[in-house]
């Protein structure tokens, strides 16, 4: 399975203190400063939508957003362009990009993200339909990646059941991890 279009969400701590309306400015400043090695294009504000995509920094290769899907605020990295390499490498690419964005937000906006919990979404229903079979076939790849990320700590992989959803796997480690540690684990 040529798994592409991987999205990774890292959840924010104390989301009730975060005012989404500030983030159109924050993301626009990322465009101004060209902070990523990807092409950043525009900012879309959907903070008026219930449990929606929040504020999105639209890019060519990927979108970054402070995403509120499921009413759980977090930084979502949504990869659009293809990534070469193995599934492990693609997961690593997406996770690293998401964590670097979290790191930037922690430094610049005093946000705090918890690395203990993450969500992986495969944004392509044809390549990866949300079925038990897909999950079973991908689980070893996911395990291999999260073994690296959590450096042997215990964690659980939980797929979401609705077959209409994109393949979505929630990952929860038994212990706390911060963004810096996870970035170190990936390096």
């Amino acid at each position: 399975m040529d798994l592409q279009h991987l999205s990774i969400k890292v959840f924010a701590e104390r989301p009730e203190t975060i005012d989404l309306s500030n983030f159109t400015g924050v993301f626009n400043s990322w465009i101004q400063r060209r902070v990523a090695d990807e092409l950043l294009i525009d900012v879309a504000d959907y903070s008026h939508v219930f449990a929606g995509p929040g504020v999105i920094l639209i890019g060519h290769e990927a979108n970054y957003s402070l995403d509120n899907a499921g009413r759980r605020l977090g930084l979502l990295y949504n990869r659009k362009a293809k990534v070469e390499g193995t599934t492990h490498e693609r997961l690593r690419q997406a996770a690293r990009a998401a964590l670097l964005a979290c790191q930037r937000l922690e430094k610049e906006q005093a946000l705090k993200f918890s690395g203990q919990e993450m969500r992986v979404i495969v944004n392509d229903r044809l390549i990866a339909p949300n079925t038990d079979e897909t999950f079973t076939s991908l689980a070893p790849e996911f395990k291999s990646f999260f073994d690296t990320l959590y450096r042997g700590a215990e964690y659980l992989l939980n797929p979401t059941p609705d077959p209409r959803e994109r393949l979505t796997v929630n990952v929860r480690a038994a212990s706390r991890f911060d963004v810096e540690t996870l970035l170190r684990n990936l390096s």
Partner: protein
Amino acid sequence: MKASNPFWREQLIDQIEPELAREIDIYETEIELRKQGKIDEKLFAETRLRRGAYGQRYDNGQRWDGQETQILQYPSTELTKGPNTVWDAPGMQRIKIPFGGLNARQLEVMADLAEEYSDGIAHVTTRQDFQLHFISIDDTPALMRRLAAVGITTREACGNSVRNVTACPYSGICGDEAFDVTPYAHALSQFLNGHPDTQDFGRKFKIAFSGCKDKGCGLVNMHDLGAIAVRRIETGVEKRGFELYVGGGLGSVPHQAKLFDTFLPEEELLPTSQAIARVFARLGEKKNRNRARIKFLVAQLGLEEFKRLVLEERALLPPDPEWTAFLNDLHAHDEQPLRPAASLNGAARPEGFDRWARTNIFRQKQSRYVTVTVTLPLGDATGTQLRGLADIARRCTRETIRTTVEQNIVLRWVSEADLPEVYAALKALGLEQPGAGTILDVTSCPGTDTCKLGIASSRGLAGELRIRLAEKSHTLDEAIQDLRIKVSGCFNSCGQHHVADLGFYGVSRHSGGYTVPYFQVVLGGQWTENAGSFGLAMGAIPSKNIPEVVERLTGRYVSERLKGESFQAFIKRIGKVEIKKMLDDLTRLPPHDQDASFYSDWGDTREFTIGDMGVGECAGEVVSRVEFDLAAAEREVFEAQVLLDKGEAQKAGEMAYASMVQAAKALVKEQFYDVPDDTDRIVSEFRTRFYDTQLFWDPFAGGKFGHYLLRAHDKHAEPATHEVARQRIEEAQLVVEAAYSCYGRMQAAKPPVKVKA
């Protein structure tokens, strides 16, 4: 670009109507040809527009970031998808939903597409369409196939074509209607979609249906063609027909539609619309797009002359069984409830229910059934919300869903007894906001968020007004509850500000070396009576002062209105001078160093600029029918080459021959529009009109290219070897080129079209 794009065709081929499947294949080939530089960018732009693939702000590869204009370094440096439109820049996909009608599966597909190809949001427009933003042009064929597999087409969603046919969302269930206009809207939409007579317009053409005249949610008066349902007794028999209107429209110069016929019998609806399309295609302005809508043609000719020409055209139309076929099946669109009719009967109501029910419930003429309006803030919904709505529609109705021109979704045929259940389900989705159709339900076009023509942020302003009005919704005086606020990002009026009580459209002003976002205030438009009258512009006010404008005007209306006086009447009574006076201080702009917030727009921290505006694609490029047909012939030559490469010589030869006939037909139609779709007849007409007259002859090569076609016609049935097929392909290419040249000569020799002043 999605990794799965190449696989959707095979996956869905059995689920797509063959004609539509073929169209999408052709579109995909056109994308390929454009990438190879074999289609001109203007032609490709109009091609994609006619498939609903629209440009989006910053697709010229530049964006003002608040400090400087950044060049967006897309990988596709040279390739364009239209003039000044970078290939890799994200675009918008418009999806036509005739009369707004959808089923649950279609809603789910919309959800899937929003998540996989867009930014997670599906947007309902002011014309009952859906729009998806930030779409890659490379993904559009797959996206279209997925829509086609559930019976949705994007054909002619943009460009100079017949746009989505709209209708009241309460058709069939409203006690005020003469009859259900749904089957008529559906039939006309099907009939004109892709019809040869609608391919040569100088501008877009919008159609609307309304079930009644007085309430008139169909907004007939502001459409190019509008039909209001009417019943009439003729010799003791009740007949159905339409009050037909033409030449209405908003845009920068709004026109009220003119009454074309007080009673157009139902069987005349399709042929008369066809005749109108023909007259518009023939005489409508083509060069100056600012005067190319049919309203200008009607105004220029005068209604009587326009009508005479249409009736003359109508008399000449070759009969078409499709004109009346749908009348035998008028009840195909009848809807049934899923659950039995039952009243609430004092059942427990969840908190918030009563307030919601006051504004979001429409009582159907069918006793104890209601239509529920689901308010979508700014027309936006997530995939999860759409799937949730699909679930409710399946559980409580027979999937009777419609979009509305107020950017909402309605669920029809809900049994009253089920309302608490529906409310609770909506609440779980965050879609239980009350205030549908009231002052809280502010509508807006996309404006500067995504539209290339946007001047000021209509969505930003609309969002701000929604928040402020919602905060005090409990204390809002009843008198202003039912006022409507509509916002457009520029004078083009996609937000329909002319028919709002309080309308606004984006403009800009220069001050102290800065450009500043302003909104023109347009007051006193009328939504009812089918957009009965248009509002008047009262002057421009800095964008950041608009909420205060709303506050003052509504406040004054509450305190000074006469008994039973409407907002329109109130505005008229107090007069423009007085209104100007009361808003005068709000027109003043503080200097930048005193309050810099005025120098950026709502929801946008960047210092304001109009430098980001692009060239609009609302109208698309004006590409004639002949050019389209010749491009299709050219594409067939390409397809013939592909077949030959695959070793299919026979098929390649036939395709090459078909391309020559296609080119010949394109030219013949210039002289004999209704030439039958019969190869012998086309070739014979071509011979008489173009070959024998030497019109097709090349100034240097003489009749050689015409001869290729005539010879191919004689020999095409013979088996083709690889060599024969290759030669025929080469000849076909020359025939198509000669057809282009011939058309160019014909155009140059044509006297300008004159219409009566």
